[in-house]
């Protein structure tokens, strides 16, 4: 007997309950939704400035274990500095009228590495010349946020879009008033531009066909809330760009399917937070099987997706976009990712055009 059959049986009971007067509660889930029209854009180009947040997973996990495990605050962990990189993506959006918008997603971690990848990708000159329209912070995690100074020292007036769930330490970072000798994180360059704080109840429409959606979720290492970027590309469909995607790929797409007008699945890019440390869990197989039912046409993944998951997904027929060898030109390479038999990650320097 399939579980859904059992639920259908329960529906009969539910109907009886409705007749007894508690119907309004049950009908809550069936209420009509107001679909969001986010408009359309023409194309999206994503450059992987850096997806290497740490170079050695065992070292990273040793730091977490020594500090007390996955529930400890990330501001309270003495990270091994030589292991740190950071996550940054550069997104260029072409509008239907030919105009363009440039978005930076996240600010990296180690400032030396972040400066290096910014220079290598050309992001530094875009920032210096104020050619970046917005800095979107996916979430407050160390590898996405602690390198904030590298961005602000180049462009302190940049418009920032952050989840409205940042902790006090994060707010002090934005104010340029934070120094932490334990986690070795600091920023003394205050953000002076517009600050947009996005909550979970309302989608933030940035430009035609571009929106930020925040999910108010608890995240390991005492972090709260993550937002993704949603692009509605004309004649193609909806693409998502994520930092870590702690809300889950399919949960994010399920939200989009239920809330974005004209939703048609097309593509995803970014960290998918599945097998981040080459660890496996049977739940991860569920995501592959679930993703096969979604109908995405392009999946560009890296960072905390876990190359094991990407390889398995590729082997099982999901449309994983393969990377190039460009990452080998960078001065430091991770110890684990190259273990995949196919180049299933979009790595540092790779570009995905949608």
């Amino acid at each position, binding site marked *: 007997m399939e579980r859904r059959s059992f*639920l259908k049986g329960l529906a009969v009971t539910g109907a009886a309950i409705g007749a007894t007067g508690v119907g309004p509660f049950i009908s809550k889930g069936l209420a009509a939704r107001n679909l969001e029209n986010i408009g359309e854009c023409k194309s999206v180009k994503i450059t992987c400035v850096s997806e290497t947040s740490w170079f050695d997973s065992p070292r990273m*996990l*040793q730091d977490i274990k020594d500090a007390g*495990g996955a529930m400890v605050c990330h501001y309270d962990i003495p990270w091994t500095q030589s292991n740190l990189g950071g996550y940054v993506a550069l997104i260029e959006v072409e509008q239907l009228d030919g105009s363009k918008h440039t978005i930076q997603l996240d600010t990296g971690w180690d400032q030396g590495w972040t400066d290096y990848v910014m220079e290598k990708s050309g992001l530094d000159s875009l920032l210096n010349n104020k050619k970046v329209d917005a800095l979107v912070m996916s979430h407050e995690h160390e590898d996405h946020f602690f390198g904030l100074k590298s961005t602000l020292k180049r462009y302190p007036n940049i418009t920032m879009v952050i989840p409205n769930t940042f902790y006090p330490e994060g707010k002090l970072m934005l104010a340029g008033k934070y120094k932490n000798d334990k986690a070795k994180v600091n920023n003394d360059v205050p953000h002076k531009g517009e600050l947009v704080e996005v909550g979970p109840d309302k989608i933030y429409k940035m430009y035609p066909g571009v929106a930020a959606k925040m999910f108010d979720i*608890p995240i390991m290492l005492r972090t709260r809330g993550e937002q993704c970027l949603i692009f509605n590309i004309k004649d193609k469909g909806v693409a998502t760009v994520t930092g870590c995607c*702690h809300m889950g790929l399919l949960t994010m797409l399920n939200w989009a399917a239920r809330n974005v007008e004209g939703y048609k699945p097309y593509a995803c890019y970014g960290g998918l937070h599945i097998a981040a*440390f080459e660890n496996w869990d049977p*739940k991860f197989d*569920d995501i592959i099987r679930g993703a096969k039912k979604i109908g995405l046409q392009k999946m560009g993944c890296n960072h905390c997706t876990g190359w094991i998951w990407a390889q398995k997904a590729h082997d099982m027929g999901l449309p994983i976009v393969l990377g190039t060898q460009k990452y080998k030109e960078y001065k430091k390479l991770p110890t684990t990712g190259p*273990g995949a038999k196919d180049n299933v990650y979009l790595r540092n320097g790779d570009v995905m055009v949608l």
Partner: protein
Amino acid sequence: MTEKMELRWLEERALRDVIPQPFSGLLNLALMVVLSTILYHIFFSPAGYLRLYTPNLGVAIVITILMVIHWGVDCFDFWPFNRRFLKETNVLVKGVVLLLFYVGIALLAMFVLYNEIIGRLGPIFFSGPALLAGGGLGQYAQTARENASYAQIMMNTCIIFFTILWLTGFGYAPWGKSDKLVRAFSVWIMGMFLAIIAFALLFYPHIAYQFYPPQIFMAVSPWWSGWAMTISSFFHFGWMVPALVLLYWTSMFWEGRPFSLIENRFWRGVATTVVVVIGGIIVMLLSNSIMDWYFDTEAFEGGNTVEQPAWRWNHVAEMFMYMATAGAILFYYFDNWPKGLSLLVRAIVRTVIAVVGGLIMAWLYYALGPTFLGNVPGMAMEGDTSLCWTVMLLSLVIAHGVFFDGFPFKKKA
């Protein structure tokens, strides 16, 4: 099959309230809330001192302690401690000695038996240090410990369930006429024997598929995925914990009914087994339907956070553990109120109190946890579970009521 046995210590022991109810119960409850918050902060909280809630290590510790307390109290009737010690020793000394004894055995079970003997010489997945020493992809410091703790949690949950199931359903049959120690060891071994079989069928396939590549020659692909929408074994945890709570309530609230209506111990045991297992599955599926309504979305294969089936099944266990803890508070602190009414009314009132009390506890946990326990606001965080706190509190309430005789607001009659 009949059993003629001497009174167990908890049946022989009589307590009275130092001050009238409900003040006695409320004061003991307040004391325990303060004490448990302090202990959680010292031992488990991510913002505390020892930070053992990693998360799985902390959950494994409290479940192992609960298992050993059940062994000592329900199976062995406090052996090797004799009645003279239990009757005549100062209540605080007795409580501390008993608590340290059972906690010590639990720590030996985890850190010596599982980590250094079973995991080193046999099934390695029970030992974090052995997984780490063995090396290999993904077996790093944090993940190796978490994976091993998961296996221990599931094994120990099976042991608790089958030990309590046997005692509730079969009593000490078929060893009822044997010596006390023979009976105790027989049930103890039977509980573990059934638990090993259950673990092999319900959890071992998960363990084999927890590694990369999957250990396909060690176990079948998890066979429950068509029902569960996940290949995670949380599906079985999700019915086993409610079934265990039904067993708790059978003894505590329903005074053995309805199973005690069956005279024959064998058939009583069979009926108990069938009813609690089916009951556990039904309440798990019903709970999931309630969550569909509450979260305004259904769980689905591959979904995350509140849409993740594995989290849903674990959350059923979490909710029932809140209710079990609320039930234990009613039983130990409020003298299993009400008394004197018909059994049916008593049973219903107590059950309703436990359910409502559990829901209130859950609400308090999520509302106040970020302030007092160091949690992140919200639900369904990766790896996070309230079980560390609830099982710790349940164990403390039992230990307070059983080892410390409910001191200071209760005393021996």
